[in-house]
């Protein structure tokens, strides 16, 4: 609880609730985001990620909850929150009829940066986001990746300390996605705090200092990527054999392994280290049991995500945690 009194929290929410009619979208969310970190809100479609961002960025109001962003109470002082934050929504909020440069200058004007400073800042952002060549073309002619970069550039005109990114890489090709990740890392290196939502586990794993998993309006887990991975059962190695007799022999030898007669495979718990794999193979060699194929599985966030949100085969994965 000492965290809540620390001034170093960029975003905090306590008991955040929101419902539309009788549909509860957010059912009591608590989260803390430390300054100068990347926080990822991970969840499937419809989990309430966008609603959370919209509430924290003052776009819509919460039904209940204590919310502070940048040291300001979201309900009582939304203007101060707006001044401290930048938001890039899921759908790029650019003016299609204006050029890239005009879009940036429009935002600079609305932030009252002054004419020369606004132009300087626009040129700087165009350069940084690799849009200088397209600066005088209207945004309507931009590709998806360019629009997203322009959108983010517009968000950054006022140098916000806290930046909300709602699915920043949704629909981007792999290269644009990598560019976006690089930009996000640079922003944090420059002192910003990033609150992003994503449904890509890889993205949360690669970028975020802390990850919260949101499912059907509730947080089902919260921690670092490693902490979350520890929530699901550890890794395993899988051995495939040529025939049933080899499988049976191996199963007798390796106690505690799970046997699949159909697939002729044996699965046994392992941390995936070279020593442990070598030890297993040595025991099989000693008995002259041939292994057709070996694979090593370390738990990734996919396991965590599926285990916690039970999106696909929920039953299986619930057993996994238990």
């Amino acid at each position: 609880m000492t965290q809540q009194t620390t001034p170093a929290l960029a975003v905090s929410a306590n008991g955040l609730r929101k419902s539309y009619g009788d549909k509860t979208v957010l059912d009591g969310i608590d989260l803390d985001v430390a300054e100068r970190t990347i926080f990822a809100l991970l969840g499937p479609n419809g989990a309430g990620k966008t609603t959370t961002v919209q509430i924290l960025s003052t776009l819509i109001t919460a039904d209940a909850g204590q919310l502070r962003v940048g040291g300001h109470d979201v309900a009582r002082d939304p203007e101060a929150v707006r001044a401290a934050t930048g938001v890039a929504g899921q759908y790029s909020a650019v003016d299609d009829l204006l050029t890239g440069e005009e879009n940036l200058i429009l935002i600079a004007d609305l932030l009252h940066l002054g004419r020369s400073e606004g132009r300087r800042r626009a040129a700087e952002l165009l350069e940084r986001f690799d849009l200088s060549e397209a600066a005088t073309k209207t945004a309507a002619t931009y590709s998806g990746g360019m629009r997203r970069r322009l959108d983010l550039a517009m968000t950054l005109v006022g140098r916000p300390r806290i930046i909300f990114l709602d699915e920043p890489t949704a629909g981007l090709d792999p290269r644009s996605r990598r560019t976006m990740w690089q930009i996000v890392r640079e922003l944090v290196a420059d002192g910003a705090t990033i609150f992003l939502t994503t449904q890509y586990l890889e993205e949360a794993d690669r970028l975020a200092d802390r990850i919260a998993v949101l499912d059907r309006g509730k947080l089902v887990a919260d921690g670092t990527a490693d902490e979350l991975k520890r929530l699901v059962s550890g890794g395993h190695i899988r051995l495939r054999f040529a025939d049933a007799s080899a499988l049976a022999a191996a199963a007798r030898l390796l106690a505690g392994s799970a046997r699949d007669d159909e697939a002729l495979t044996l699965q046994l718990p392992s941390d995936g280290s070279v020593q442990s794999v070598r030890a297993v193979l040595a025991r099989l060699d000693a008995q002259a049991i041939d292994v057709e194929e070996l694979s090593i599985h370390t738990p990734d966030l996919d396991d965590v995500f599926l285990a916690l949100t039970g999106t696909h085969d929920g039953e299986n994965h619930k057993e996994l945690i238990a």
Partner: protein
Amino acid sequence: MSAMAYAMTDSATMLRRNLRHALRYPSLTLAGLMMPIVILLLFVGVLGDTLGAGLHGAGGSDAGYVNYVAPGIILMTVASGCLATAVAVCVDMTGGIINRFRTMAISRASLLTGHVLGSMIQTLISTGVVIGVAVLLGFAPTAGPLEWLAAAGLLVLLAFALTWLAVLIGLVAKSAESASNTPLLIQFLPFVSSAFVPVDSMPAGVRWFAENQPFTPITETIRGLLLGTPVGSHAAIAAAWCVGVALISYFGARAVFNRARAS
């Protein structure tokens, strides 16, 4: 800077944005300008002699049909500016950009103020052009400076009222298509007023409607100011209509705009 000064700066920024849109994509504005000009040419050049003769018979002025119809066409120009405004507001509200504006520390009203100012500037320029075309076709106003000023005042008031109405339509519309349909009704309302033929030449039911809809008193007031025909109580009724529409539309638009939530 004070909050008021910020609101004015932000409105000016939004106005620049809207004017830039209009200059870059002038088709809607030009369509709003061309329609009254085409109707003017049609009614004066093609139908003018017949309608003028009928007017004469019905006890209208014999100064030529162009003089009779020009005031109504001028009003039509003001009304046709609505379409572009409603569409522009709707495109803004249904696009992503509105959410950016809403999450920035800017004067919220400035978006609408920018639209209203931008539209009024375009409408008044169009109105000037249409008056010019009418004059070329023989429109000969007898108004002195004071009457011109009064007519201009009423036209500005009408433009203000209709622009806010268009903003309201744009805010309520779910798509640009529906935003462009509703203003057509306003655009065609002048046809069922004293703009083209005197109301006493109309069948009873239509006549009742024509007498009691806003474009008749506004047309009669402009006609009276520019051509010296009797104005009577029309001026007060015209002003009341404009103020009424402006107030209802302004407060309606404000309420819808503040209520509108991100979807």
